[in-house]
Each structure stands twice: as structure tokens, then as C-alpha cells.
């Protein structure tokens, strides 16, 4: 497997098959780990960084069974490929735009990815559709154990796993659940979610965790506290508390829209379809905003003109790097908008 082959499909995490997937798009757990005996990456020189990368790559590669995963040298990769991996949530934006020896091991089903030489030496992530944190924890815990048999991690009895930034110290765990909240956005009740999350010291962000806008009504809820709570306690906060609450709020909002504002709701959904299926040039943000309304239409059973697979594919493939990968060449913004509209028309007709 390689990035070219990967780019034609859609990762399992976007497949809409996991539990509560009408609201929960995907769950992710990430662990930050550093190898004992090496400084953090902010102070390593080029040679040391390269040596560290070789050590990490070797250890990770040794754990890959058969052809289940492949390693991408991010420093060597071209810009479109780097951006493509960001769009597929396989690497962070920081890893894509950074400098020096660094890479990522990607499992073919994209359920697991390991960034090497990001902010921390290792950032192990597991990703799955719907709300499945327990499965994810078992997976990442087991893999982390396998890794720690071949690498000594920087660890302190009091502070736990030592990380480059003190905000990750302790468990080094970051749990993120991506939720689709179009009805709460329309009914202006998102503040309920944000308040509930803040009360539990959880952060709410837009889709890629940066910028000021939540593209496609997709929000990411993640923990900030990594010290003084066990991994199980952090996961439980999501599984038992915040996510069931958010799912209930969104379902209730969808219910109240179909009861009280059916015409306006239908209008939203069908206008979205009208534009997506007919536009001759369209930007990423507008596409995602309209696809979001289609997704809500499908889940409220107001619209059946599109299947989940196509919808998931489109959420991913309307993005800039995916369009350029499909075209096999760099496209400027205007050309991308034209290509994007053509893709949408083709898939929605």
C-alpha cells in the first residue's frame, strides 16, 4: 500500500458504521511518548534528529506484521502528499509543515498511525468510526506495550510519561471524539455542548483543531488534563458522560426541527442538494457546509438521494489535496473550485 492507493478510498473512520454514527463521526486516542536518553526535539541537532528517526523507524517497522502498514518519510514527501495525510487525519498540520527528519507509519485501514519526530518522539494514534473508545484503548494500550519492550520511554514516577510540552505530561493521552452537530448549530444551542464540555475541562474545536470556524458543523471534543487521572478515567468521561449528553442534545434538536420547522429544514436540505448537484465552481468550506446539511437530511430521513458511502467519500475528496491527487497535478484555487464542482455533480447525479 502507498499514499496513491490510499487516496482513492476513504478511511474506516469516516465509514459511518460505528456506534451512534448519526452524531459521532469518529473516535481517536493518541499517546505521546519520548525515548529515554534523547533530548526533546526542540534541542536536537540535525544529526541527532536523524539518528533518533532511524531508531524510531526501525523499532516501529519491526512491529509491523506482514504488509499491514507502510512508512512515509514526511521530510521527503511532496507538498500535496503531506496535505493529503493531514486531510485524512493521519498526521498533524505541524508535522506536515515542520522541518527535518520525520515520518509516519500508516496502517492500511488507517485505523492506526504513528508519527515519528513530531513535537514528541512518538505520537501513536488509533482512529475508528463512531463511539468506540474502549476498543481503541485496548488496541493502543497493546501496541504501546509492544513498543515499550523495544524502546525505553522517558518516564518519571511522579510525573509519568515525560513530554516536550508539560500540558501532555503524565499519561500523554489525548482522546478526541468528532461529532456532527448541524441541528444544534441551526437551533443556536451549541453553547449547551460547549458549556458542558468546559465544565469537565474538555476542549471543543473545529474539524482540524485549528482556525476559527467549524467546517461542516464538525466539532472535536478532547481532554486537556493528562496528569492525575488514569487513562480509564479520561475515557470514561467521554464514554459515560459528555458524548452521550452531546448525542442526546443533537438528536433532540433534530427532532424539534422536524416537528417545528419542517419546511425550513427541508428547504435547507434540498437547497444544499440543489447547489451541490449543479454548481460550476465551489469552495471547500461551502461544500462542507452543504454536505453537512445533506448528512443531516439523510439521518433525519428527509432525504434519501445519497448513500452513506458517497457522502463520506465526498467529505474527504472535496478537500484541496485530494482534488489535486485525483487530478495528478497541482491545481490553483480557482481550478480546484471547478474540479470540486465537477466531482460533486458527478457523484450526486
Amino acid at each position, binding site marked *: 500500500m502507498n499514499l496513491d492507493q490510499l487516496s482513492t478510498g476513504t478511511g474506516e473512520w469516516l465509514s459511518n458504521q460505528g456506534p451512534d454514527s448519526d452524531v459521532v463521526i469518529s473516535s481517536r486516542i493518541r499517546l505521546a511518548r519520548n525515548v529515554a536518553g534523547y533530548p526533546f526535539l526542540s*534541542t536536537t541537532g540535525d544529526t541527532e534528529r536523524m539518528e533518533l528517526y532511524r531508531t524510531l523507524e526501525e523499532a516501529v517497522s519491526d512491529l509491523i506484521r506482514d504488509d499491514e502498514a507502510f512508512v512515509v518519510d514526511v521530510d521527503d514527501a511532496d507538498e500535496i502528499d503531506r496535505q493529503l495525510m493531514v486531510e485524512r487525519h493521519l498526521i498533524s498540520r505541524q508535522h506536515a509543515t515542520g522541518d527535518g527528519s520525520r515520518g509516519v507509519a500508516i496502517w492500511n485501514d488507517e485505523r492506526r498511525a504513528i508519527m515519528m519526530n513530531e513535537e514528541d518522539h512518538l505520537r501513536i494514534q488509533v482512529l475508528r468510526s463512531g463511539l468506540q473508545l474502549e476498543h481503541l484503548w485496548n488496541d493502543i494500550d497493546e501496541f504501546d506495550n509492544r513498543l515499550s519492550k523495544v524502546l525505553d*520511554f522517558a518516564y518519571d*514516577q511522579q510525573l509519568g510519561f*515525560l513530554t516536550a510540552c*508539560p500540558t501532555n505530561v503524565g499519561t500523554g493521552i489525548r482522546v478526541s471524539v468528532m461529532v456532527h452537530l448541524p441541528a444544534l448549530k*441551526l437551533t443556536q444551542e451549541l453553547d449547551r455542548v460547549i458549556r458542558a464540555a468546559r465544565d469537565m475541562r474538555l476542549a471543543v474545536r473545529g474539524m482540524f483543531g485549528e482556525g476559527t470556524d467549524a467546517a461542516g458543523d464538525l466539532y472535536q471534543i478532547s481532554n*486537556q488534563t493528562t496528569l*492525575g487521572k488514569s487513562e480509564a478515567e479520561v475515557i470514561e468521561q467521554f464514554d459515560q458522560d459528555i458524548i452521550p449528553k452531546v448525542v442526546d442534545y443533537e438528536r433532540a434538536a433534530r427532532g424539534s426541527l422536524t416537528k417545528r420547522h419542517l419546511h425550513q429544514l427541508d428547504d435547507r436540505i434540498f437547497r444544499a442538494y440543489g447547489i451541490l448537484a449543479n454548481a460550476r465552481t465551489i469552495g471547500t468550506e461551502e461544500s462542507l457546509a452543504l454536505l453537512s446539511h445533506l448528512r443531516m437530511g439523510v439521518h433525519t430521513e428527509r432525504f434519501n438521494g445519497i448513500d452513506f458511502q458517497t457522502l463520506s467519500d465526498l467529505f474527504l475528496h472535496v478537500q484541496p489535496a485530494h482534488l489535486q491527487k485525483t487530478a495528478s497535478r497541482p491545481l490553483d484555487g480557482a481550478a480546484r473550485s471547478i474540479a470540486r464542482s465537477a466531482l460533486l455533480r458527478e457523484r450526486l447525479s
Partner: protein
Amino acid sequence: MNFLCQKCNKQKAAVHIMDTFPEKRERHLCEDCAEQEGVIYKKSDETTNELLQEFLSQQKTSTSKKVTVEDAVCDECGTTIRDFQAKGQLGCPHCYHSLRRVIMPLIQRAHEGADQHVGKVPVRADEQVRKQTDLLRLRRELKDAVDQENYELAARLRDEIQSLESA
């Protein structure tokens, strides 16, 4: 446009929204209220730096200390508090010890007051370390169980602690 936020009526409105659902209406909010409503999102990675800046400015005003925190330097990698402030990252694992005086209060503020790891212990870590961390966690869980008057759980935890201690 120069008027007050419609929600808090205190700060200047900085975000102007045209809602079209279920009907058209304009709203004018300040940044804080807009963020609270999920209309805008401030950048995410500012927390550490904000915490650090705040902490450093507090230190400066307490004049009693002759050596300011800004002079602290890691004897292993040479990272100073200024470096940490500029990059938002420490230089090496040893910084946690050598810059402890500055880092610890920061860690506690970032982690709801916690200063003790209670999670996973690496597989190859000394058995003793694992045991101590487990014990710390169990004791804390025991305290919570007692606080919540969950005596059945408390009894179970006490047994676990005893068997671990005698192991």
C-alpha cells in the same frame, strides 16, 4: 459598527452574524460570547503560553526572591525559561527536574491541580515503580469511594491495597 454585545451588554460587539434560520435576523456579539455560543473558535494552542506568561508576570512582582525564575537553566541541555517561553516546549526530560520550581506550578494549573501520575506504567519500568503508582491510584480511589459512601467498593479497594503491599 460600534455598539455593545447583545448577550452580555458589556463588551463591544465584534462578531456580526446574519442568521437565516428559521427566519432572518441579525445578531451582534462580543468575541467571548461568540465563542461561548460556538460561533467562533479561538486558536487552540495558546493555553500553555498564556499560563506561562501569567505565571512569569506574577513572579516578577514578588520582589523578595533574588534569583528570578527567568535565570533558571537546565544543567543537562541548557534550556532556559526564556527558551521554554519562546518555543512552548522543554529541551529534555531532565528539564522537569532542573526547571522544577517554574514548571511544577504550571503543571498543576494545567492539570486541575494534580502533581502525581496515576496512569499506565511502562512495561519495562521497575516493578517497584509500578507498584507504587498502583498503590497511589488505589489509595486515591479508596478516598473517593469513602467520600461517596460506597463502602462495598472501599472494602474491595482496601483488600487490593493490602495484597499489593504484601506482594
